[in-house]
């Protein structure tokens, strides 16, 4: 997804993406118009991609970008209403009066968090929030985002423009949320980052199990949030969860893109450094008090990651963590994972008993995971026919191609049609 940035060396590209939200913040403060400022900053980033490889990176890249974006901004605004024109000329004077090299190198204020809160505002649809976050804060182009989501560029452009429209209509101010709304707004922000990560890690639809670029971008953005909010337990939790999950990326799919389950993965391929970082973050977060769902999920991922072999997994601890998580969320996927952990600790009949209680849950009735888990537990219990039946039912319901192939092969393996067992 880096076609536009191919000409730029990775260090400059990284710098550009880091600067994108800071530059946008500065331009918004100067012109008070988020939607147009966001377009202007995109144009400045593109200008940098074209000019920097040719002319060298300027001494003050941040000032350069603000200068170019402000110039584009005035161009945009000039074509608008007379009232706007007067404002912009005042702003233009302010810019030209100062040589751009003199524009302060250090940001007066880091606007990245303000921008993130704005882009992930609950008034926006999730699809719009995701697209806008990746562009305005991530510094990705519309084309890159479209490429990552496998939709036409115009579709993403439209989502971004609708997001801007929602921001305008809701009158969301360019400032940090008030302390009353902070918790809810932070939850929305973390949810958007989590969805971006998940889209990259388990592409919701596609031949490839994972699209690394999106997961990496989600990790980078979550790191930024963590740097700005280092003491928030759920921010730490999400960053740790992303690190600990993404650490298994290379082991998760085979050469043909086929799914490899946790138990079957070559653990030598796991990223030890990322695991160590995730575990360290979690350990540091524990004394901070309140425990949230991201932290718990990260703790579960850590227990898996710390087992040298699948059979060494500390299932009683995982079960205890799922008990806690179950109390905190009404997510049926948590109930399913809890049933698996119970089966690993107390045997498959305990897990199957827990699954029966989920049969009446309308959210799961047409979900492949219930059948897939039941198939797995029936196989553990030695009921091959039952397992084959449910593997096949799960295969017919899943919306992921690698998962369907995996489930069909499990069914084939157990039914003996491939002559191996």
């Amino acid at each position, binding site marked *: 997804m880096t076609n536009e940035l191919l000409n730029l060396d990775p260090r400059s590209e990284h710098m550009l993406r880091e600067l994108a939200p800071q530059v946008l913040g500065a331009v918004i403060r100067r012109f008070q118009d988020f939607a147009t400022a966001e377009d202007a900053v995109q144009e400045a980033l593109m200008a940098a991609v074209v000019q920097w490889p040719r002319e060298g990176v300027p001494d003050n890249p941040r000032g350069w970008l603000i200068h170019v974006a402000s110039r584009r901004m005035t161009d945009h605004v000039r074509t608008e209403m007379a009232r706007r024109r007067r404002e912009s000329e005042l702003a233009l004077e302010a810019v030209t009066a100062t040589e751009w090299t003199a524009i302060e190198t250090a940001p007066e204020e880091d606007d990245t968090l303000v921008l993130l809160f704005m882009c992930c505002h609950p008034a926006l649809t999730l*699809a719009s929030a995701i697209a806008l976050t990746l562009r305005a804060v991530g510094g990705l182009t519309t084309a890159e985002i479209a490429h990552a989501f*496998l*939709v036409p560029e115009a*579709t993403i452009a*439209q989502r971004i423009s609708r997001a801007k429209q929602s921001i305008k209509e809701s009158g969301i101010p360019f400032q940090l949320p008030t302390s009353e709304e902070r918790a809810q707004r932070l939850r929305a922000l973390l949810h958007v980052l989590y969805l971006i990560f998940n889209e990259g890690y388990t592409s919701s*639809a*596609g*031949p490839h199990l994972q699209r690394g670029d999106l997961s990496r971008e989600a990790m980078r953005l979550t790191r930024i949030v963590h740097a700005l909010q280092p003491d928030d337990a759920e921010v730490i939790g999400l960053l740790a969860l992303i690190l600990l999950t993404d650490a298994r990326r290379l082991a998760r799919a085979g050469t043909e893109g086929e799914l490899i389950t946790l138990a079957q993965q070559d653990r030598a391929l796991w990223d030890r450094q990322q695991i160590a970082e995730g575990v360290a973050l979690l350990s540091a977060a524990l004394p901070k008090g309140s425990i949230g769902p991201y932290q718990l999920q990260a703790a579960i991922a850590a227990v898996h990651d710390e087992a040298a072999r699948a059979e060494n997994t500390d299932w009683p601890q995982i079960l205890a963590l799922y008990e806690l998580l179950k109390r905190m969320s009404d997510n049926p996927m948590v109930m399913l994972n809890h049933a698996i952990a119970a089966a690993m600790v107390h045997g498959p009949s305990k897990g199957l008993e827990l699954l029966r209680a989920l049969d009446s849950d309308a959210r799961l009735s047409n979900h492949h995971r219930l059948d897939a888990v039941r198939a797995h537990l029936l196989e553990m219990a030695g009921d091959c026919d039952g397992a084959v039946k449910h593997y096949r039912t799960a295969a017919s319901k899943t*919306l992921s*191609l690698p998962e369907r192939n995996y489930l069909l092969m499990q069914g084939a393996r157990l039914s003996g049609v491939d002559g191996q067992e």
Partner: protein
Amino acid sequence: MKYILLMNTMKVGDDGMGKWPKKDQQAHIAYWNTLNKELAESGELVVVEGLAFPDQAKLVRARKDGTPATDGVFPESKEFLAGYWIVDVETPDRAYVIAARASAAPGPGGAPLNMPIEVRPVMMSMRPDELL
């Protein structure tokens, strides 16, 4: 999640709206244009394609040497695909709402046609540049 909305309405010898009064044809076309424009504006449209009449269809099978053997139209088929949309929406219910809009396109006299629209999740998407 992406969904494909398949519109199966054509029959062999069907010339679409050929026999409808002109104003009904115009209303029908305007209805599609409005729907497509709305889907583009909502950021949900991935692609929309309409297909040529079934008379243009050929049934192809490989001969023993692998070369194509083509057959003409197949009057035994009751229905043909007329066209499809691929939309990228947040819930299946949203895909059904769009399908219902498509189904209710106006026919002769402006009455809704209530055509059956088959809605199915898209399981994989690939672009040529991903394979090169």
